[in-house]
């Protein structure tokens, strides 16, 4: 990404000259309803970006006159706007104008400003990034893009199989499995320099890297011991420690936000199910997922509260959520392989279409889904930079 949010220079126009009122959004009544907002004065790409960003983060963009609040502004040369209460005309948030970055990025920044102003405590995700795998013929490459699928770039050009990209915290380094040396091995890939290092190149398969939230360790599934088991090591792959030694297959580790627990999948009991284990080792503890028969590909929300995962039933795949302590499962939408956004509210996942796989976004709270089918190629295994 050529321009970071830090390069945006915010200029506040008309600060303090307008009276501000607070909007009373009755969220206690039904947090699953999207909040209507109208846009006025925006055009082209800026209008598209604002609409996409707002609608995936809890709003629904409606025509003027159908909402309590309206974002009035323009994108003549720069994006500027003011969120206003329709009836009184009073300003809800101080107006803002942006400069110093492409218009698309200014629009993203404006969307974040509105989201964070209207939903205090909720982080905006409009300028975040994702990584995913794209199938190109017989092989795969790893790609990075904006969270909405814009500006996808391959970060590999190995013309071999590659799987399960996983970000290190900070968004500057990605881990993945690549078969470029004729074996599935785990690499770390520094996005600033392009430098790659072997993290795990043992006999058998080296799969499913997951970096701890503090960036110091990596969990992975290695079969060198005779069965795919969970291991953890320092982020460079040294000081390897085996955590499981079942005769069944383990897969898909993910970390608690405090870095002390790993949630993963094991088929120890016959069907794939979710388990927890302390990073220091010990017994694996099953996570109760009442209502589904199998569970794979979990991800732990950054706020620590919720696991999202895939279940397979009736020939199809569904995203589900369950509290981290286990319990009743909520089936969310059709899809698989979810990854949480930093806001612990949005999830990116994969859907299978007729001829290819594609990425989709889900707002868990409102169940609103946005498909990103404009990405060319069959895309899957998305992971959100956090």
């Amino acid at each position, binding site marked *: 990404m050529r321009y970071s949010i830090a390069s945006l220079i915010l200029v506040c126009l008309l600060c303090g000259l307008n009276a501000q009122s607070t909007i009373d959004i009755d969220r206690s009544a039904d947090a699953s309803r999207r909040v209507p907002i109208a846009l006025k004065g925006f055009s082209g790409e800026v209008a598209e970006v604002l609409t996409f960003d707002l609608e995936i983060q809890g709003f629904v963009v409606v025509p003027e006159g159908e909402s309590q609040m309206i974002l009035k502004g323009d994108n003549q040369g720069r994006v500027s706007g003011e969120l206003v209460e329709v009836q009184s005309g009073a300003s809800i948030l101080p107006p803002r104008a942006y400069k110093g970055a492409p218009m698309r990025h200014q629009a993203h920044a404006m969307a974040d400003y509105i989201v964070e102003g209207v939903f205090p405590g909720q982080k905006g995700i409009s300028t975040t990034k994702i990584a995913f795998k794209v199938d190109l013929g017989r092989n795969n490459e790893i790609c990075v893009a904006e969270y909405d699928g814009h500006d996808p770039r391959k970060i590999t050009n190995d013309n071999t199989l590659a799987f399960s990209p996983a970000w290190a915290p900070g968004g500057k380094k990605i881990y993945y499995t690549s078969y470029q040396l004729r074996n599935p091995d785990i690499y770390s890939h520094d996005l600033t320099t392009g430098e790659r290092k*072997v993290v795990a190149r043992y006999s058998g398969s080296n799969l499913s890297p997951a970096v701890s939230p503090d960036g110091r360790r990596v969990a992975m599934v290695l079969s060198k011991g005779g069965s795919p088991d969970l291991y953890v090591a320092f982020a460079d792959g040294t000081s390897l420690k*085996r955590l499981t030694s079942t005769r069944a297959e383990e897969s898909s580790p993910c970390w608690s936000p405090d870095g*002390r627990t790993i949630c993963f999948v094991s088929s120890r009991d016959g069907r794939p199910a979710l388990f927890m284990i302390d990073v220091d080792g010990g017994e694996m503890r099953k996570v109760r997922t009442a209502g589904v028969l199998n569970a794979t590909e979990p991800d732990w929300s950054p706020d620590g509260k919720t696991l999202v995962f895939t279940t397979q039933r009736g020939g199809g795949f569904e995203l589900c959520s369950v509290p981290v302590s286990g319990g009743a499962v909520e089936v969310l939408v059709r899809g698989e392989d979810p990854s949480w956004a930093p806001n612990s509210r949005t999830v990116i996942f994969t859907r299978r279409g007729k001829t290819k796989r594609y990425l989709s976004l889900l707002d868990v709270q409102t169940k609103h889904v946005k498909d990103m089918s404009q990405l060319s190629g069959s895309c899957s295994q998305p992971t959100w930079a956090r």
Partner: protein
Amino acid sequence: MGQVTARPQEAMNMPKLSILTLIGLVALLVTSGCQSRQPKGPTPIPGPVANVGDVDNEFPALPPEEYTSDPSDFDGGFNNDGGFTRGNNSIPDGMPIDNTNTGIEFEPLDITDDPMALPDNVNYWEGMVMDAEIFEGQTVYFGFDMSSIDAFEAPKIEVVSEHMKSNLSHKVLIEGHCDERGTENYNLTLGEQRALSVREYLINLGVNPDRVHTISYGEARPADTGMTEEAYAANRRCTFVLLTPEP
């Protein structure tokens, strides 16, 4: 043992417990003199440059050094109860071998902690010629979401084991595959589990574990791209690739 490199610019809200654990670990490592096996550090592999706009990025792939760090080195500062198995620690006495020349070569069996552990050598194909066709008729098929060997499939593995026991310089690579009716990560491990299952069967038939390798392709290399039950069944398989020494 590995170096702990402090990277303050990446530390984010590190809980005290894990800091203390790491400090305790470093202290224990320094004082315990854990010197038996020094793992070699990872060899940097030059990667594509950051500006991935141009497609023609070439980079030489250097063969990495063999990775020798082993979990059994790790015995300081962590709770070893429960989740940390080393396999059999004591080997019972074997039978003495009658050394008269019977015309049969005995295969020396390597002693490892876990008889099913994979051989260390990840570059097993060096100096070998690969033949993916010779054992096409011995492809082993599996039930949905299963990695166990069906009784009807076992005779095919026996054919491979007979060849291996008659050709002690040969190696075999077992490739594990899945149909697409599973999630991708899960399918990679299921494919590996299938390959390991066939490997275990071969070893139990008397083939030296050091000559049997596995690789999983998950659902990435289907035999049949159709979406029928027959196509799916054709993809749930393990294939054998024979490796013979280069002439």
